[in-house]
């Protein structure tokens, strides 16, 4: 199908974008990569009165990497983040998760920030923002503000952002010392949305014992959540930790739904399997770093 008629503006500055969003009111929507919004329009699941295309706004297309973390601008395409080695060194979950986002042709247009603003619980980057304890910066007519991930996601495809607002960047804090990460998912076909995905961070102490274990899942629950799995393996030497126990704990913490792709029970099973698998991988990575210290 085709989108219903709408009005279109492509402002050349952020201020102009906010001015048009304000003037056009409730029915106006930001258009970034269009890889989620245009399908919604063509399927007539959304009918905004006005699209405010931010692709011409300068200064939004850079990835800034410091020791504290990675700031991804609103016009950074998935492809660009995936190829950013400096970003991957500071926060390896970025590239590991982005590799699972859609297909190359979709990644060439779709943006990381758009994924987050879209707040799809089956998107990878919402759960990476949560797992890394990240935040977004939002431009509004009354000035910029920072919104922590916990305050951002309200429900499926719903954020706490109301009124004229453009998310200008997302900040992903750096991976802590002595930590390893892993990301894995099960999808029907390569590049499809995950039936279930898992991202994990394992942190060790100086004696190579498990200090902290955190996980976040994709396509599980209505909004991204972070689960602390430390208690299942706390204080255990990294080489003899019982990852299956952590997987079992994860299964009791999640609350997946049934849909046409999978039952809730199957998703819970996958949570256990993917948790065990990714934790072993992340722990091995962390252990190699501690040994190398």
């Amino acid at each position: 199908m085709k989108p219903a008629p709408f009005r279109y503006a492509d402002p050349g500055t952020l201020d102009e974008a906010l001015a048009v969003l304000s003037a056009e009111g409730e029915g106006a929507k930001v258009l970034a990569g269009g890889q989620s919004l245009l399908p919604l329009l063509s399927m007539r699941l959304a009918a905004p009165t006005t699209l405010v295309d931010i692709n011409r706004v300068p200064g939004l297309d850079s990835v800034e990497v410091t020791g504290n973390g990675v700031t991804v601008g609103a016009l950074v395409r998935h492809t660009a983040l995936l190829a950013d080695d400096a970003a991957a060194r500071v926060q390896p979950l970025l590239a590991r998760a982005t590799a699972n986002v859609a297909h190359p042709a979709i990644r060439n247009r779709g943006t990381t920030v758009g994924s987050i603003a879209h707040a799809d619980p089956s998107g990878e980057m919402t759960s990476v923002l949560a797992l890394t304890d990240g935040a977004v910066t939002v431009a509004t007519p009354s000035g910029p503000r920072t919104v922590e991930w916990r305050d951002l996601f309200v429900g499926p495809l719903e954020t706490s952002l109301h009124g004229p607002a453009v998310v200008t960047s997302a900040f992903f804090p750096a991976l802590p010392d002595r930590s390893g990460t892993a990301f894995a998912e099960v999808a029907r076909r390569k590049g499809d949305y995950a039936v279930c995905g898992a991202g994990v961070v394992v942190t060790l102490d100086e004696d190579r014992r498990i200090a902290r274990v955190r996980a976040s899942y994709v396509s599980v629950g209505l909004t991204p959540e972070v689960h602390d799995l430390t208690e299942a393996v706390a204080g255990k030497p990294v080489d003899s930790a019982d990852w299956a126990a952590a997987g079992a704990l994860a299964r009791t913490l999640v609350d997946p739904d049934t849909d046409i792709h999978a039952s809730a029970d199957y998703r819970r099973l996958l949570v256990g399997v993917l948790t065990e698998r990714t934790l072993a991988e992340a722990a091995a990575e962390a252990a190699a770093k501690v040994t190398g210290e």
Partner: protein
Amino acid sequence: MSVDTDRTITVTVNGVPREATVPVRRLLSDALRHDLGLTGTHVGCEHGVCGACTVLVDGDPVRSCLMLAVQVDGHAVTTVEGLARDDHRGGQVLHPVQEAFRECHALQCGFCTPGFLTTIAAGLEKRDPAAELTDEEVDDMVGGNLCRCTGYANIKKAVHHAAAAMKDDAR
């Protein structure tokens, strides 16, 4: 700041500057087919899943059903019609990927073919032709395009075939 319902755009399509006046809701796929008469770009699902509508925008593969025509104003678009190359004798030769598809029997009904050709042509042109092409790389390249006829085996064979031809060309 103008907020419009129609716009006149100028796009370089297959090397030729073209102008069109379109409603802002016109998808790039429809603009190519209906406004510019380039029906080589096929439209399957219209929500980004099948890949039949893939074209190159400034050299990168994108879904033309997930872009608005107004968004390519001032940009360069390559469709399947633009893959063949000048033979410098007044005619044209097929792109190595097109040649490989014919050679390897990589199409049956042909509906998906334009999307595969643009995607693979860009994918192969972007890589170092001397580097060995792995099966995994090929899967990643074509994994976003659906074909209901061939079963993919011959398509993958064609990618390797084209890569080998392009490697020879580069020597």
